[in-house]
């Protein structure tokens, strides 16, 4: 087990280097550069622009730039400087990352929190109207573009006043007691987490249902029933636990989908996360900020997959790895 974890962690490192190389390459291919946005001001002369170009090292050949970047990253955990914000990249991203994680994890809670029980329910009532109805509802929600559902929910929030209109915290958040702070945060999380979490819901729910149905057909289940155990114990104590396993493999992938999905939600609900920063950085071509952001998002994903693999190994010793 320990060697397995170590091996997976070591495997992740070249992966991350590869990702950084890929993003750097992509940024080099992009046309134009960051200083153009500021060049739009009639008051600025060309000397100012050139001075900035030198200061940020944009006039060095690309391999020199990348070499410097990689060295800083590996030895100093320094992601570089954000040109547009005059700060180290890590400082800019840190807050954003935490906020995106908060949203993604809450969305995951929504997804799994709904997928597992609903999937079980659908499996247990296979082919009934409950089963079909749940399927239908999940598909319906899945088919609404996030852009539209986000707008409708935002509008709903404004009209009814039941939820805040975007944002992460209320203005008076600092003066609340810890419980108040947590509740306020949850209040703001509700709609965006809902929007994001519902997206993979259909897939996971059907997965759960299918897995449970598979498991219920197996011999040991029939044996358990024959032994006289009541249906509830059979289903919940034995079958569900085994049916969840394949879902765990999808955990990492789902997390990726949630981090991606929260991108759009962050913009619509003014959630101060990584997504908004990345888009901004891309449009101003703040090189190091974009690379740092993509890297961070990838780290989240790789870590998620790692966690999923470990969980799976823990949960199901039969799984053989070659």
């Amino acid at each position, binding site marked *: 087990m320990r060697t397995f974890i170590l091996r997976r962690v070591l495997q992740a490192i070249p992966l991350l280097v590869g990702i950084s190389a890929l993003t750097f390459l992509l*940024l080099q291919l992009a046309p134009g550069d960051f200083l153009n946005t500021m060049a739009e001001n009639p008051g600025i002369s060309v000397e100012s622009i050139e001075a900035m170009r030198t200061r940020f090292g944009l006039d060095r050949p690309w391999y020199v730039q990348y070499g410097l970047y990689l060295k800083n990253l590996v030895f100093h955990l320094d992601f570089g400087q954000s040109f547009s914000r005059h700060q180290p990249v890590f400082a800019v991203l840190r807050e954003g990352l935490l906020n995106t994680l908060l949203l993604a994890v809450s969305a995951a809670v929504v997804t799994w929190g709904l997928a597992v029980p609903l999937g079980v329910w659908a499996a247990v009532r296979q082919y009934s109207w409950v089963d079909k109805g749940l399927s239908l509802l999940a598909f319906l929600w899945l088919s609404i573009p996030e852009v*539209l559902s986000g707008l409708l929910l935002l509008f709903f929030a404004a009209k009814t006043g039941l939820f805040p209109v975007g944002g992460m915290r209320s203005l008076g958040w600092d003066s609340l007691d810890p419980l108040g702070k947590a509740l306020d945060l949850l209040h703001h999380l509700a709609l965006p987490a809902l929007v994001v979490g519902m997206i993979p819901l259909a897939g996971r729910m059907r997965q759960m249902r299918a897995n449970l149905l598979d498991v219920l*057909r197996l011999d040991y289940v029939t044996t358990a029933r024959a032994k006289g155990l009541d249906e509830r114990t059979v289903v919940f104590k034995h079958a569900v636990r085994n049916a969840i396993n394949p879902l765990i493999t999808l955990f990492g992938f789902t997390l990726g989908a949630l981090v991606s999905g929260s*991108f759009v939600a962050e913009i619509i609900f003014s959630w101060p996360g990584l997504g908004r920063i990345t888009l901004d950085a891309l449009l101003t071509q703040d090189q190091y900020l974009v690379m740092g952001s*993509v890297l961070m*998002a*990838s780290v989240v994903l790789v870590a998620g997959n790692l966690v999923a693999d470990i969980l799976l190994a823990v949960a199901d010793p039969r799984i053989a790895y070659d």
Partner: protein
Amino acid sequence: MTDVRAVPAPPALPPTVTTPTDTGPASLETAGGATATQTPWGLFWRQFRKSPVAVAGGALLIVLYGLALLAPFIAPYSQEEMDRERYNHPPHRLRWIDASGRFHPLSFVHSTTLVDLSRSRFVEDRSRAIPLRLFVRGAPYTLFGLRLDRHLFGVDAPHRVYLLGTDPSGRDVLSRLLFGSQISLTVGLVGIAISFTLGLLLGGLSGYLGGWADAVIMRSTELLLSIPGLYLLIALRGIFPADLPSQQVYLSIVVILAFIGWAGLARVIRGMVLSIRRQEYITAAEALGMSRTRIIVRHILPNTLSFVIVAATIAVPGYILGEVVLSFLGLGVQEPAASWGNMLSQARSQRVLTSFPWMLFAPGTAIFVTVLAFNFLGDGLRDALDPRKVLGGKTG
């Protein structure tokens, strides 16, 4: 959004993964219980028909693609024509009985005049009934190489009929929706054509050849799959010079989506190929001296076919929604060309929601219905192609 890399779980293998038995897809042709008169196609069709939503989905898609194909004929106006008297015009109300009691079988509308510019309010002129006609002459267009000018329906000049109203530039929403469908509906098809070809090829090679080819390809997929979809999409979009004409932007979007889409499929195909490879009939073919290419093409890949079809159907919505997100971020197909994504993004405001809802719900519903149809169809296909369902009972 549905990630374009989402692929359904590979087809069922029994929970004991380690020992492949003869319950692979190949058994579809040899399992006992299948009567001699039942062809695979017949089995599939019978199972498929059991799901009415899937059938409905499929039928709807055929209709939608048909509409897209014939868009220039069905749309009463071109996607660029601007009616400078009627900005933000609501959908014309169709009526059948006019003021004098006469019945118009094809319905009629009233002409309108603007009464409030800042609120875009119009009043109807009830005195005149302007009947809808079929096959009216309108703006010329080219379809299948023919230059035509007859449109499916319309009204006599100088009147106009806007069944879904107009947008802020005075353009017919229905026409733009139809022309936009050409882009939005083909994004998926072209996208999966590219990504699935790549995925099948690379996944197949990877699984069959093994060794360094396998390693290289699998590492690449890991790389691509480790970057959250949208972040990769944004980064890739940024490298295309943005001053491309609309058609090329469209192509670049499709290419990008395809580029990130092949990885997921490749991995699954590889897994399937690995397990199929161990089947006895493959080793038999190898022993018989069949060339590797022939084996891959004639034996391995066809057995992935059912899975691929299902995966493709389920992947298309990811492309359609991907185009919507790109348009929302301002990186998609641009004006004046219409796509469902950019129509939706432009209409995404409170003002539109309260005062001009048709601008928002026309593309929104179109997207919704299409994605839903694909999902239902995919689901139905999956059930129909699932050997266990088709044959009934458990296997192995």
